């Protein structure tokens, strides 16, 4: 039998649930492409949340049933979606007015790196020869919308993704509010990174060993 490496920490689904629990009833929320999309499936019963997709839809619903896809009804990741009753469509300048003008409440994004100060790098690894592509990432973090990052705590190689200074090109400076990883929920405050919650079986020291900057604990 092949020995299995012990897996500790939250599953991706747990991480999405942790994010969803922090989204208040009545929020307008923009979900980034990939892991952030899972958050929609975990909103607690009794809360009504309206999803925005920056290509011009407020009131985005789940993926359509097979055979009911409409090529003119897609999300920012260009996947087929549906529109809920009460949804509305608008053009791109209005859509980014909702974002930059702070009308959206919360945006959930993935990350390559987050710094101690809340700087976010999530659009480019700066690799030579790569085709640069930014999409709406920089606009989403430019206003005062709450920015939740959902991400594995470390890279596939085990390198910390929470770093003192981002080495990848920045998406925005001092923009992240909370980081939801497989090991912990971490609030970004003016005086540092505060661990708010630890995954079951995970200690503060275990998280610290996998994090570049010094972590803080809320006083009990």
């Amino acid at each position, binding site marked *: 039998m092949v020995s299995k490496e012990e897996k500790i920490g939250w599953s991706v689904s747990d991480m999405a649930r942790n994010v969803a629990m922090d989204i208040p009833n009545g929020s307008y929320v923009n979900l980034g492409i990939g892991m952030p999309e899972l958050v929609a499936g975990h909103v607690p019963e009794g809360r009504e949340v309206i999803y925005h997709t920056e290509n011009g839809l407020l009131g985005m619903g789940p993926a359509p049933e097979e055979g009911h896809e409409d090529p003119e009804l897609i999300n920012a990741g260009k996947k087929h979606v549906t529109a809920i009753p009460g949804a509305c469509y608008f*053009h791109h300048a209005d859509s980014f007015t909702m974002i930059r003008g702070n009308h959206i409440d919360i945006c959930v994004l993935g990350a390559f790196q987050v710094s101690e100060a809340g700087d976010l790098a999530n659009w480019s690894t700066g690799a030579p020869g790569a*085709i640069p592509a930014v999409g709406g990432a920089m606009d989403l973090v430019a206003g005062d919308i709450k920015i939740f990052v959902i991400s594995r705590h470390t890279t596939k190689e085990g390198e910390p993704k929470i770093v003192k200074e981002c080495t990848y090109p920045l998406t925005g400076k001092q923009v992240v509010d909370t980081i939801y990883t497989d090991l912990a929920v971490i609030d970004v405050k003016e005086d540092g990174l505060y661990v708010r919650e630890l995954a079951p079986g995970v200690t503060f020291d275990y998280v610290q060993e996998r994090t570049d900057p010094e972590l803080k604990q809320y006083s009990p």
Partner: protein
Amino acid sequence: MINKIVASPAEAVAEIFDGAVVMIGGFGEAGSPIELIHALIDQGAKDLTVISNNTGSGHVGLAALIAHRRVKKMICSFPRTANSKVFPELYKNGEIELELVPQGTLAERIRSGGAGIPAFYTPTSVGTPLAEGKETREFDGKTYVMERTIRADFSLVKCRAADRYGNLVYNKTARNFGPIMCMGAENTIVQTKQIVELGELDPEAVVTPGIFVSKVVEVTNPAEESKLVAEDRRYPW
């Protein structure tokens, strides 16, 4: 009589000249005016600067225009998608220019151009490589970067229904850049699935007022880009 309706995509794009700046609507395939783009390929204008969110898929539509070497420069926010092969290849070989713009900044540069505003300050991209070399200014303790407006000679846009005055309504998320691109060009050329009589569009529900539109051509059954890409079709057929 005002009648902006023309008979064919070929007639609609006939005046596009070499070196023109052309905005092309669409977000991926949603809203991409594929028949107008194909007519532009047939027409032959070259050295174009194209403003569009993406760079097209497979070898049809915008990707085909690029593949035929008609585009010298792309201004866009996201030049690579799952099925974009043409632009990445040319870009890697240094055969096409790219101006990368954050999506909201791209939208606002287009909108403000149509609104007669030459530049604006935005918080987007401050402190990132995309703000390098640009003027910045503080307002109320926060730093903003100055962005210049874009104006185009022509816009190519797709919509669901239009009348002979050029009033337009769109279809779902295919609206995306359409309304602002209609405002942002000297000549706006629209392909519509349906032409309706004056008065049939509810004035309260018109999305693009006809004043922003120059020409309308009916394309009843527009091609679906993703189907053409799945079949590996190449334009010209």
